[in-house]
């Protein structure tokens, strides 16, 4: 069984975001990156299947030339190979169709049995790339998966619906799944794993050499700090003063 996991690196949680001079992009020169958190769950699912079915796990990123955080992370945790589709296009707010088209070209060559993605990226958060990719690859798909079983020919999955509802689905392999958080407990990379990762293959594919051009559909005009919708009361001072004010306010509002 061959499993491809689509992984993205995103600015780390506490990073301060600066917009670029033209206002339509980000200045990421000072930014630290980490693996897009939802993708860690997708990777863990692939590694779990590898442990059970002796699968080959390939991690793929579309990113700028230095976008190797997520792939290195994957290789250190047990993925076998990495693929980086290189282009600065992916360093900004790339649209899902552009990203998925590039991923599709590279993934088609791999003929995997299963493609996994996260359900959403923590940066641009389109929540689309996996589903678009499935359509481009002609694969059946299911989203928001919180449980996955396979006999090697079909998938039996549990899909999350709204408000605490679930549903089971059966679909044939090859297929694409987008993985929801909480499906598993992602493992940590071991020192040994990190050492081994350095020797694992990482293929770099310049986007220009792939037949993956798309005409723009979503155009970013501007990125900016959101305007506040509702201004509540901010309680200031020392923690003791803040606590006292909060209790007073809550008593005044008759909710205590």
């Amino acid at each position: 069984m061959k499993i491809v996991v689509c992984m993205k690196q995103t600015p780390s949680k506490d990073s301060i975001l600066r917009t670029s001079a033209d206002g339509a992009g980000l200045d990421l020169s000072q930014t630290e990156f980490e693996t897009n958190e939802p993708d860690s769950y997708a990777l863990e699912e692939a590694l779990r299947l590898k442990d059970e079915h002796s699968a080959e796990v390939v991690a793929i990123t579309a990113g700028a030339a230095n976008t190797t955080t997520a792939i290195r992370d994957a290789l250190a945790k047990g993925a076998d190979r990495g693929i980086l589709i290189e282009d600065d296009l992916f360093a900004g707010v790339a649209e899902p169709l552009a990203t998925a088209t590039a991923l599709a070209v590279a993934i088609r060559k791999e003929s995997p049995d299963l493609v996994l993605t996260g359900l959403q990226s923590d940066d641009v958060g389109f929540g689309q790339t996996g589903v678009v990719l499935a359509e481009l690859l002609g694969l059946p798909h299911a989203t928001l998966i919180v449980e996955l079983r396979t006999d090697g020919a079909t998938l039996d999955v549990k899909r999350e619906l709204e408000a605490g509802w679930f549903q089971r689905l059966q679909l044939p392999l090859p297929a694409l799944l987008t993985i929801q958080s909480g499906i598993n407990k992602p493992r940590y990379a071991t020192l040994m794993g990190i050492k081994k990762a350095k020797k694992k293959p990482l293929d770099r594919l310049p986007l220009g050499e792939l037949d993956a051009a798309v005409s723009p559909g979503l155009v970013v005009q501007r990125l900016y700090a959101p305007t506040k919708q509702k201004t509540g009361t901010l309680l200031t001072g020392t923690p003791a003063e803040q606590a006292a004010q909060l209790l007073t306010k809550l008593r005044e509002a008759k909710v205590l």
Partner: protein
Amino acid sequence: MSVLVVAELTHAGDFHPMSWEALTAGRELAGQLGLPLSCLVIGGSLGDRSAEAAARGVTQVAAVEHALLSAYTADGFCSALTQALGQIAPQYVVFPHTYQVRDYGPKLATAVGRAFLSDCTSIRFDGAEPIFVKQVFQGKLSADFTLAGDAPRLFSVQSGAFAADAERPDSPAPIHALAIELDEAAIRVHPTEPYREAAGTADLSSAERIVSIGRGIKDPENIALAQRLADALGAELAASRPICDSGWLPLDRQVGSSGQTVKPKLYLALGISGAIQHLVGMKGSEVIAAINTDASAPIFEVADYGVVGDLFEVVPELLKQLEQS
């Protein structure tokens, strides 16, 4: 040319309430562009639903009904809607950003060769081109998008971003049943009936007060601190998704789009950033208070009382002062 709103039916056969929020977005857009507003209803057996949609102040209802659409599948819905869009040829198509639309919207857009702008929070009109606003970076930034390329232009709207459209039951619109063909063999995914997990013991929906913890609580050992505050306030303990994902609290204490929707008198959020999927589950609370170290956390946009501070300093103070009083 029209603005077409795709209404969604739940598995129980009712309209998904977000359908009418999408209708509001569609009405705004249609008004600005001077285009007629129509509504599409899709499902296995529509019953009175088409007539209900027709009474919503639209110029036309497209009814897409087929036995193979009884159970939702991305393949079935995509094929049916591709045919419907071909027949209707709308300028814009508006979807509610439900879990179902997450599942088929991007596939449909790709199938018809278009982009899809997911999860918009508002539409602005600066000139002739509508500008679609979307939150990015977990709500830390907003982005203005324009849609390029030919019609149809597809987008979905975020839960709660638009008020539900008012009913106008006096002006029924004509209903057009669209003829579509579906091939059973082309539906590759086989769903079973939706179900709920056996109900847990926590009934947050009737709680008067809720103390809710997020990732700011940092370690499961610290939950005891939040529990003490909850006890002192006579509150139930709830949590954001990551806390339940990690198994620190059971799933039945999760608040949000995939958990419970709560409306207590007091919702006190400790170390919760305020992602939209959390907000939809608690923003109906009477009074919202939040303690968070990050002044720019989106939770402060819905909080009546905001404490920018460290919960590990403020919560012990709250406990001390509650004991003294």
